[in-house]
C-alpha cells in the first residue's frame, strides 16, 4: 500500500516538472509579456527597466531555475499583473470554483444516477427513452449556448434568478460560501445546473448501461429467487456492481469540472479560477499559469488516488489483489 502511494507521488512530481518546463517554453515562444502589457507611450528606457525588473533579460534556463528554487521554498512567485503572491490569488478564488463544481457534480449524480438506473431497469418504457433523449441533449449541446439560454429564460424573461455573479456569501471556517443563504442559492443554481448538464448525460448513460448488464446477470436472478424486494435488488446488488465505473468517471469528471469550468464561469460571471486563468493567458501572466497548472496536476493525482482507494472499498477482489 505504501509502495503504491510513493509510486503515485513520484509520478506526480515528474508530471509537474515536465508541465512547468512546457509552460515556460510555451510562453517564451509566444513572446515577451512586456510587449503585451506595456503602454504605447512608453519609451525604450521604461521598457528596458521593466524587462530587467521582471528578469526577462536573463536566459530562459536561468529564469526557470530561479523559479524552481523559489517553488522549493514554497514561493510560487508574484503575478506580473497584480503583483500579489500567486497562491493567494488562486486560493482567493478557488472556493468559488470548488463550490460550483461540487454543486454541479451533486446535481449530476443525484439526478443522473437514479434516472440512469431507471432507464436500465425498464429499458423499453417510454420514460426511459425520454431520459435517454435528454441525456443526448446533455452531451451534445454546447455549454455556452445552454448557459445563454438559461440566462435568457430565467433571468431576462422570467426574472426568477439573477443573470450572473456570485451574490452574497457567508464565511464558514473563514471560507466564503454561497450555499448558506437563499440569496446565495439563487446565484449558484443556474451556473451549477449548466455545468452539470454534460456530466448528467454521462452519468445517465453509464448507470443505464451498467444496470442493463447487471439485470441479466446470475446474481440478480438469485437475489430475486431468494425473494428479495425489487428495490433491494436494484438498490443493493445492482448499484454496488455498477458503482466502480461511475466512481471512476465521477472522479475524473470532478477534476475536469473543477479545472475547466471556464466557459460557465465566463457566461455567468462567476468569480472562479477559470476566469482568472483565461485572463492570465491573455496577458501572458506566466507565474499564474504555471502555478495553476501545477495545482491542476496535483488535483488530478489526488482525485485518482482517492478513486483508487474507493475501488478497494467497493470491490473486495481489488482489496485482495492489492494486499497480495
Amino acid at each position, binding site marked *: 500500500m505504501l509502495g503504491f502511494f510513493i509510486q503515485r507521488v513520484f509520478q506526480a512530481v515528474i508530471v509537474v516538472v515536465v508541465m512547468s518546463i512546457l509552460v515556460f517554453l510555451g510562453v517564451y515562444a509566444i513572446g515577451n509579456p512586456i510587449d503585451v502589457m506595456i503602454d504605447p507611450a512608453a519609451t525604450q528606457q521604461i521598457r528596458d527597466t521593466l524587462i530587467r525588473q521582471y528578469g526577462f533579460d536573463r536566459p530562459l534556463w536561468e529564469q526557470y531555475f530561479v523559479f524552481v528554487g523559489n517553488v522549493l521554498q514554497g514561493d510560487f512567485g508574484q503575478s506580473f499583473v497584480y503583483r500579489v503572491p500567486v497562491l493567494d490569488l488562486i486560493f482567493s478564488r478557488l472556493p468559488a470554483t470548488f463550490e460550483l463544481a461540487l454543486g454541479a457534480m451533486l446535481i449530476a449524480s443525484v439526478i443522473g444516477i437514479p434516472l440512469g438506473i431507471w432507464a436500465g431497469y425498464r429499458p423499453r418504457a417510454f420514460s426511459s427513452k425520454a431520459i435517454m433523449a435528454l441525456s443526448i441533449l446533455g452531451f451534445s449541446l454546447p455549454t455556452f449556448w445552454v448557459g445563454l439560454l438559461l440566462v435568457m429564460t430565467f433571468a431576462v424573461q422570467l426574472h426568477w434568478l439573477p443573470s450572473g455573479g456570485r451574490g452574497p456569501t457567508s464565511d464558514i471556517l473563514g471560507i466564503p460560501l454561497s450555499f448558506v443563504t437563499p440569496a446565495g442559492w439563487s446565484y449558484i443554481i443556474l451556473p451549477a445546473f449548466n455545468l452539470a448538464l454534460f456530466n448528467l448525460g454521462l452519468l445517465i448513460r453509464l448507470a443505464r448501461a451498467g444496470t442493463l448488464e447487471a439485470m441479466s446477470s446470475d446474481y440478480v436472478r438469485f437475489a430475486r429467487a431468494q425473494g428479495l424486494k425489487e428495490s433491494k435488488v436494484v438498490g443493493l446488488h445492482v448499484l454496488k456492481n455498477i458503482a466502480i465505473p461511475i466512481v471512476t468517471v465521477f472522479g475524473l469528471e470532478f477534476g475536469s469540472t473543477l479545472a475547466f469550468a471556464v466557459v460557465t464561469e465566463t457566461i455567468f460571471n462567476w468569480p472562479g479560477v477559470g*476566469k482568472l486563468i483565461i485572463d492570465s493567458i491573455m496577458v501572458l501572466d506566466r507565474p499564474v499559469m504555471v502555478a495553476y497548472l501545477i495545482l491542476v496536476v496535483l488535483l488530478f493525482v489526488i482525485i485518482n488516488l482517492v478513486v483508487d482507494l474507493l475501488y478497494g472499498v467497493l470491490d473486495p477482489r481489488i482489496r485482495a489483489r492489492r494486499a497480495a
Partner: protein
Amino acid sequence: MQGDVLVTHNKIEQAHFVIKGDCLMLSRKNVIRAVTIALIGATSLSAQALAQDLTIGVRAGPDSIDPHWSTLGSQAESLRHIFDTVVAVDKDLQLQPGLATSWTAVDENTWEFKIREGVKFHDGSDLTAEDVKFSIDRIPQVTGPMSMTIYTKSVESVEVIDDYTVHVHTKGTAATLPNDFIRLFVVSSEIGTVGNEEFNAGTAAIGTGPYKFVSWEPKGDLVLVRNEDYWGEAPAWENVVRKEIPNDASRVAALQSGEVDLINYVPATDYAGMQNDPRLDTFISDSVYILNITPNVKDELPVKAKVNGAEIAENPFQDLRVREAMDLAINRDILSQVVLEGLGKPANQLMPATFFGGSTALPEREYDLERAKALLAEAGYPNGFEIDFACTNNRLPGDAAVCEALSQMWARAGLKVNANALNGTVFFPAQQAGEYSLWLSGWGTLTGEASYTYGSLVHTADPEKGLGAFNKSGYSNPEIDALLEEGARTLDDDKRRALYTQVTELSMNDRVLIPTVIIQTVWAAKADTLTFEPRVDQETLAQLITPVGQ
C-alpha cells in the same frame, strides 16, 4: 501501477457502455411520465433599486486600487472616482482645471501649478502642495506592470513653493507637461511608503475624489460611497457598484434582467435590437480609437512580397504610389456602415481632427478603384502582388472583421493580401519584434494631443530621444522629426498647434500610416432612468451620470 491499469480498463468499459446505451429500443407499452428537471424553488429577487443607488456593468475594472499602478484605461477610469488628477479633461479630452486651478510656464524649464484651496481628503485632512509633490515623487517607486513614469519622464524635480504652489522643473523644455498630468492622481502624503496591498485593503485608498472606497476584489465588484464633502459638484448617486462583466453577452443579459442599470461596450450585434427596445436607452459616442494600416517601408521586408508566386527582392511599400493605391482601394463607408454595423466613422488622420494638432484641412479619403489600379500599374505592379497582412482579433470591436474586409477590397484592386487575424497576446510581441510586413492595429490618442500619437508612431525610432517607440515600419522623415522636436520645445500653444498640424498633414499625405475607421462605442441603460454624456475616452464615470428627473 495497478490503479492506473484499472482506470484505463474502466475507461474502455465506459466507452463500451456508452456505445451500447446509444441504441434506443422501441416498445409500445409505455407509461408516459414527464421527466422534468427539478429546479430549486426560485424566488424573484427584489432588485428594486433605490433612486440613489447605481450599479454599472463594466467590461474591465482596475488591477489595483493604487492609482499609480498602471496606465491602463480601465485603471484610470475606475480610480477617477476615488482620486482626482492635477489637470482634468473634459469629454473631448481638452484640458480643464483639476486639483490645480491654473498652470503657467514661468521659464523654459519650470511649470508653476496653483493648487486648489479648501480641498479635503476622505480622512478629513487638507490637500496641500506637499501631497502633489509626494504623488509625483511616488510614481517611480511603484512597481506595477505598466509604469506611470511615462507621465513623469520629463520631470526633473518638484519644488514646493508654498502650501498651494508647486514648481515642476523639467528636463529640457516640456511643452506638453500639463497633458502628461491628466492621469496624475494625487494621494495623501500621510500614507507614507505603502504598496499595492494597503491600497487594495482600503487603508491607503484615501483620495479627494467624488466617491470613497468601500471594497474591491480583483476582477470583482468595486463598491463606492458618495463623498459628502466633495469640492466639486456633488455626485447624484449615494452608492455605486461597478461590476466587472467581461463577457459581452453576459453584460447585456445583466442589463436586460435588471441586475445592472447601465453597461458599457454594447456589442454591435445587440445595438440594432436595443434601439428598437422601449425598455432600454442607448448612448453612442466616437472613441479615441482608430484602426490604422501600417506598411513596412524598410529596405527588406520581414515577409517578402510575391509577384506571380515568386518572392521579389524590393519592398513595394517604399513607393508612395503603392501606398496611395492601397489607400484609394479602401471603401470606408462600407467599412463603417456594413462591416462595423454602423458603429464606425471614416477616418482621415490618426486622431480626431478637433484634437490639439489635428488638421481640419485634410480632405476625406476617397474611394477610387480605377485610380488605385492605375497607380499600381504605374509603380510597376500591373498584376498586383501578394503580401501577408496581420491584425488583432480581440483588441477593439470589429478589428478582425475590418481586417478581412480590407483584404477583399484590395483583392478588387488586384492585390492578393493574406489576412491573418491573431490574438493580441501573439500579435503584439511579434509586431514589436518587427516580424510583419503589413499590419492593422488600433491606436487611441488618450492625451488628446498630437505629440503622443505622432511622436510614437511617425517620428524616427530613436530610443535616445525617447521618440518613435512604436514606429516599427522603419519610416524616417527628417522634416517631420524636426517639426515634432521643435513642437516639444515650443511653449506657446498656438505656435505648437501649428507645428503639430503640419506634422499631421505631412505624414498623412505621405501615407506613413493609413487610417481607416474611427471606432464608435455604445452604452445602454434602463429606459428613462438616467442621463449621461459619453466621453471620447470611453470612461463611464458615476459622477457624470444623473438620474432622470433630478
